């Protein structure tokens, strides 16, 4: 099972869990599984046309999936998926 690391802004939708195991064989399946188990996550990651949102970056291990096979990037059980959202805090 691959592991998804949930970024802080999305943890309020995943019962505060920061790591989740997923069965999916591709990044797309893993994200769908996450969105199925925690429905409030969906609109943050997937747009109305079913595409991954452009302001969210997804990495498998250290690599941007756009440099791999995008959402069809295959996963193996040791893989760690990072969801990197835009955050803007600092001055406050």
């Amino acid at each position, binding site marked *: 099972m691959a592991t998804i690391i949930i970024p802080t802004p999305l943890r309020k939708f995943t019962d505060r869990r920061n790591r989740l195991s997923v069965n999916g064989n591709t990044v797309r399946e893993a994200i769908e599984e996450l969105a199925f188990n925690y429905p409030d996550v969906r609109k943050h990651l997937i747009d109305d046309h079913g595409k991954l949102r452009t*302001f969210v970056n997804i990495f498998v291990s250290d690599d941007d999936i756009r440099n791999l096979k995008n959402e069809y990037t295959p996963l193996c059980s040791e893989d760690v998926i990072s969801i990197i959202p835009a955050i803007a805090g*600092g001055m406050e």
Partner: protein
Amino acid sequence: MSYKDITFSREELARYNRHIIIPHFGIEAQQKLKAASVLVVGSGGLGSPLLLYLAAAGVGTIGIVDFDVVDESNLQRQVLFGIEDIGKPKVLAAKARIGNLNPHVNVVTHNVQLTSKNALEIIEKYDVVADGTDNFPTRYLVNDACVLAGKPNVYASIFQFEGQVSVFNFTGNDGEKGPQYRDLFPVPPPPGLVPNCAEGGVLGVLPGIIGTLQANEVLKVITGVGETLSGRFFVFDALSFDTRTLKITKRPNTPAITELIDYEQFCGVKAAERKIKEISVEEFIEWLQAPEQIQVIDVREPEEYREVNIGALLIPLASVSAQKEKILRDKKVVFHCKMGGRSAKAIRELEDQFGFDNLYNLRGGITAYLERLS
């Protein structure tokens, strides 16, 4: 003037001794620091450690952009300031503190808000920009201005327990320009998706950690010592101590930046400001005289509700649509949050998607209400 012409007084040599004796750093790196000018945008949580360490390290010229004044609630994390600074403009308090730490640094204050009109003029005067701002419009403004002016943008950002650091728009020794912010985040998230620190909170020590890492990157960019985070994106989770350094690249479809635009509009901040019905604290207190005629809903998070509440029905912003059945249609419904921002978003969402027309936003939120009572 080349950095090689930079000289040091006896006092400076004594002060920077621990730098000068580091192998591969030495007097040459110290000369580069003194010859350099760095613009720090935002002198808050990230700006505090950033300014202190850049000044202590001997960066010759430090510019500070901020138009805010020091508030007591800043002192939980903004270690640049003390009690005596409360109420003073941040740039002036910062200049005084830096002067006390290292009188060999030339501090230039810009007590203004960075805008599309003044950004290029300010940024052009500096070698390196360090972005420690707190909102998406300014993030994109700083990025775009750095791209247009050809300046490296040392980036750091924080939210609650999580921090990010990178170096954007940096030309390495190989002459190749690294990725910029828009290669990673071509468009901002819609307003309301990611709350700011005033609404979402931040662990006070986190900007200390992340701002110090940002200072480290600034020193590497200036001196050429070590490898910068250009082409890499560092992520830190203070709760789990997970750290990741991810590879980032330029994207062929990132549109070229040709001019500075209206960033409030680009980030949807203006579009979200469509008028909704509001009531003042005074009107609200009047309405409370007949509580059976109104419903009051608090859209903050459960943790905030536990800390203080006024007996309202708790429906956090993220779940207002899912819990719409609980919202009455035959009475006036008053929405509140901490300051009024999130409750306005909740009302817009409910009006747009479910046609509610009986919702009122409490201006100033629970903060204004409690202040009025006290």
